[in-house]
């Protein structure tokens, strides 16, 4: 047993989960702020702990920005009454939030968020089947939602659960198909190797733009974001699968949704936008110094946050798809498109070899 490995892995897990939680907290704030800006509003700008007003310029600025809002939101979720409605299926009702959150957290395990610092690779688990692992874990997320819909023993959550299972399974297929060209080009399933290939040949977005578009749309559907938020659909389903949940259990669903967004963004960055690399300033090679290692982590985070903003932005841009349109788009547009994409890529690679 290699103690070094265990200790460093634990540290990396702790930091990665902490950072993801932080990003989740502040992406909720970003969601509210960006929605406000798009809708000509101001957004949260009042919440602040009492000592902040004594900080001269920074304090009011951060308060205006809503910087302390996530703390208040978190506190609210913690201290609210955890209400269990009569007639729910108790065990599943308690299980469902956990089943939703855990896969959302697990996905980040294989994502390389930096090259290396010292001798440590900046990835929790450098799996050779990284992408397969991700797809396996992501598709587990649907169980939590279906379970929540079933456990609530009420009509709206049930509809939400059913919709979500159908939607996620449909889009899982096009998502998986869309990544195959990438794997064909690179010839490797290891995410670190995919990034290495991209630092040598240029970002995969240029080689497989269609794959990227399908992957992005499918990941919108996978994370239940608008325009594919049918499982939640506030206007028709009163919140869908988490209608009956309150307090921390509801917060866990929230957490899972945003963690899924984080991991989807991270996957998009890793697969199509060169992960932690930038084609200049020597950032495309594995780091030799500590500063470079940290710089690459920030490059990765910056790219990821860009996609998070796109996720949020799109939510306030498009209306929700109708259910039949959703299925039509998934099965009759994206699936054939992804198949043709595989074929074209394969033929192109065959002709070139």
């Amino acid at each position, binding site marked *: 047993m290699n103690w070094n490995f265990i200790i460093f892995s634990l540290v990396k897990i702790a930091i990665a989960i902490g950072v993801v939680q932080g990003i989740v907290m502040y992406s909720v704030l970003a969601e509210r702020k*960006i929605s*406000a*800006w*798009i*809708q*000509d*509003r*101001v957004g949260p*700008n009042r919440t602040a702990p009492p000592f902040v007003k004594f900080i001269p310029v920074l304090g009011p600025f951060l308060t205006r920005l809503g910087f302390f809002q996530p703390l208040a939101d978190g506190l609210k979720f913690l201290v609210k009454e955890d209400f269990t409605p009569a007639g729910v299926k108790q065990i599943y009702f308690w299980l469902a939030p956990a089943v939703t959150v855990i896969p959302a957290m697990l996905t980040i395990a294989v994502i390389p968020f930096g090259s290396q610092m010292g001798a440590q690779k900046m990835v929790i688990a450098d799996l050779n089947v990284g992408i397969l692992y991700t797809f396996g874990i992501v598709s587990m997320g649907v169980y939590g939602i279906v379970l929540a819909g079933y456990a609530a023993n009420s009509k709206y959550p049930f509809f939400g659960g059913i919709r979500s299972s159908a939607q996620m399974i449909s889009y899982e297929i096009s998502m998986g198909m869309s990544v195959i060209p990438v794997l064909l080009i690179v010839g490797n399933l290891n995410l670190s190797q995919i990034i290495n290939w991209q630092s040598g040949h240029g970002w995969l977005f240029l080689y497989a733009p269609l794959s990227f578009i399908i992957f992005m749309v499918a990941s919108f559907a996978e994370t239940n974001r608008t325009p594919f938020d049918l499982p939640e659909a506030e206007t028709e389903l009163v919140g869908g699968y988490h209608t009956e949940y309150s307090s921390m259990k509801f917060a866990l669903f929230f957490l899972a949704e945003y963690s899924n967004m984080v991991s989807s963004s991270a996957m998009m960055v890793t697969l199509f936008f060169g992960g932690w690399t930038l084609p200049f300033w020597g950032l495309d090679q594995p780091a030799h110094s500590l500063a470079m290692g940290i710089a690459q982590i920030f490059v990765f985070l910056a790219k990821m946050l860009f996609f998070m903003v796109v996720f949020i*932005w799109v939510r*306030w*841009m*498009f209306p929700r798809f109708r259910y039949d349109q959703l299925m039509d788009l998934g099965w009759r547009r994206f699936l054939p498109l992804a198949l043709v994409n595989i074929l074209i890529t394969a033929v192109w690679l065959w002709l070139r070899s």
Partner: protein
Amino acid sequence: MAVVVNRKALTFWEKLYLPAIIGGLKVTLKHAYNTLILRKVVTMEYPEQKWTLPTGYRGAPYLVKDQDGDTKCVSCQLCEFVCPPKAIRITPPGDTGLKADRTNAEKMPAEFEINMLRCIFCGFCQEVCPEEAIFLQQDYSLTALSRGEMIYNKEKLLSLGGVSPGIQKWKHKLEEAQAQENFPVKL
């Protein structure tokens, strides 16, 4: 009768959703630019910014004083009787009670209470008052930490009400009556 609406089929370009996506991007970016850069925000940040109230706004009813700073109310209790939600309670001075502040009045109320939680700001008290002693003023945000604090007593009502705008009541009544006579009625 069924009406058949012929829907125009989408063109190939439209079926790609691209025009809609580009349109959406343009609209949201424009709005974000307006709020972030040009600061055109529709939100009114309430406690700091407030409405300019129109004249004749019916806020909370307060008692007013006359030009000498004396109580105008003569404790006739008309407002108490007309008040639809029974928010007003007047305690008359009784035989041995206080004399009125001002010279040409017989009495003034020993206590005058308005329960602001019951008040519906209808303005009947102002309308019925023969002495023009109570007016609906511009206050709309009344807060307190308990129900008891929301019952305003005479002292508080007088201090909030200030000095009356109109002090010649019979002249006013005449003008009002004439205005009603001359009001152009559309048939």
